[in-house]
C-alpha cells in the first residue's frame, strides 16, 4: 500500500528537520490529509508507527489534520462537496470545477522539545 512510501517520506523529512536542531528530540509531527487525497489516515498512522519502532524516533507522535473535500464551480462559483467522485456542479451541472480543498498531502509542523540557545547566542542575552 502506498501509505508506506508516504510514511517513509514523512520519516525522512522528520530526520532532515531534526538535523537542523541538534541535541533536541522531535516530539510531534503534524500533517494535513485531504478527504480525497487517496490516503487512508489510519493506514498511514499504522505504517508510520511501524517505521518508527526501535528507532530514535519511537516516541514521536503523529497529528493528522483531515481536510474536507470542497470543490468550486468556475462557472457559477458554487462551492460543494464531492459525492461518489462526480465532479459536476450541483447548481449549473458544468464540469468546469476546481478542487479547492480535499486533496492535500502536506506537512504542517514538527514540534521539537525546547532546545538550548547556541553558545554563540550573545545577540539574545535574555535567552528564551
Amino acid at each position, binding site marked *: 500500500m*502506498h501509505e508506506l512510501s508516504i510514511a517513509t517520506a514523512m520519516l525522512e523529512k522528520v530526520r532532515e528537520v531534526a538535523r537542523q536542531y541538534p541535541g533536541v528530540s522531535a516530539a510531534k509531527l503534524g500533517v494535513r490529509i485531504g478527504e480525497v487525497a487517496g490516503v487512508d489516515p489510519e493506514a498511514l498512522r499504522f505504517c508510520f508507527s511501524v517505521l518508527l519502532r526501535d528507532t530514535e524516533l519511537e516516541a514521536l507522535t503523529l497529528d493528522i489534520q483531515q481536510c474536507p473535500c470542497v470543490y468550486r464551480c468556475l462557472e457559477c462559483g458554487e462551492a460543494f462537496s464531492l459525492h461518489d467522485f462526480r465532479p459536476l456542479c450541483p447548481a449549473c451541472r458544468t464540469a468546469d470545477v476546481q478542487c479547492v480543498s480535499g486533496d492535500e498531502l502536506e506537512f504542517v509542523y*514538527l514540534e521539537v522539545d525546547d532546545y538550548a540557545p547556541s553558545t554563540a547566542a550573545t545577540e539574545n542575552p535574555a535567552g528564551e
Partner: protein
Amino acid sequence: MHRVPLQQKILQENERIAGELREAFRQHGVLCLNFIGSPGAGKTTLLERTLEGFPSATRVAVLTGDIQTEIDARRLRRFGFPVRQIATGGTCHLDARMVQQALGEWKMAELELLLIENVGNLICPAAYDLGEAAKIVVMSVAEGEDKPLKYPSIFFKAELLILTKSDLLPHVPFEGEIARDNAHCVHPGLEILQLSCITGAGLPEWQMWLEHRRAALNVRAAAG
C-alpha cells in the same frame, strides 16, 4: 516545546524529480506516456502490439515496472527497441526517482517516445508523477463497467482510457455504454479507445492517437 512550521507537500521530493524529468523530456522533444492498469489488464500486450507497429527507425524506448521478475522486459525486447525493467522489490507503484535511475545513461536526445508501463495497480500509481505528458489508464472488458467509479483517481487523472480485450465481449457481461457513462461521470470528456490485441480491432485508432499526440508535442515544441 518549539513548533517548526513545515509548509510543503509530503511527496515534494517526487514532484521535484518528476519536474526535472518533465523538463528533460520537453527539452529533447520526448513524448513520455505512463500506462496504468490492474494486473492482467493487458498493458504489456498492448505495448507489444504498439512496438510491433513501429518502423525499426522509431526512436522509442520502454521502461516496465513490476515487483519481481524480468518477464515483461524480455517480452518487450523482442521488437528490437531499448527496454529496461524496473523491479521495485515490493513497492506497488513506480515513482520519479525509480524512473530517473532507470533512464540512466540513455540519451534523451536520441529518443522521441518513452513508454512507461507502471506496476499493475489501479490505485497507487495515480498519486506519483513520473514526469509524463499523459497518464493512460488501461482496463479490460473483463474487469467490469464499475471500475471507473470504484477507482476514480486514475480515471480522473488519465488523458485516455483504453478498453482492452474487446474480443472477449461475446463471453463477458460487459456493458460498454455503462462503462463509458461511468468513466465520464468521474472524468467528463475522457477520450476512450476500445481495442483487441488478439484480433487487431481498434489498433489502427490507437496508433493514430499516438501519431496525433506526438505531432501535437512537436507543434508545441516548435511554438515554444
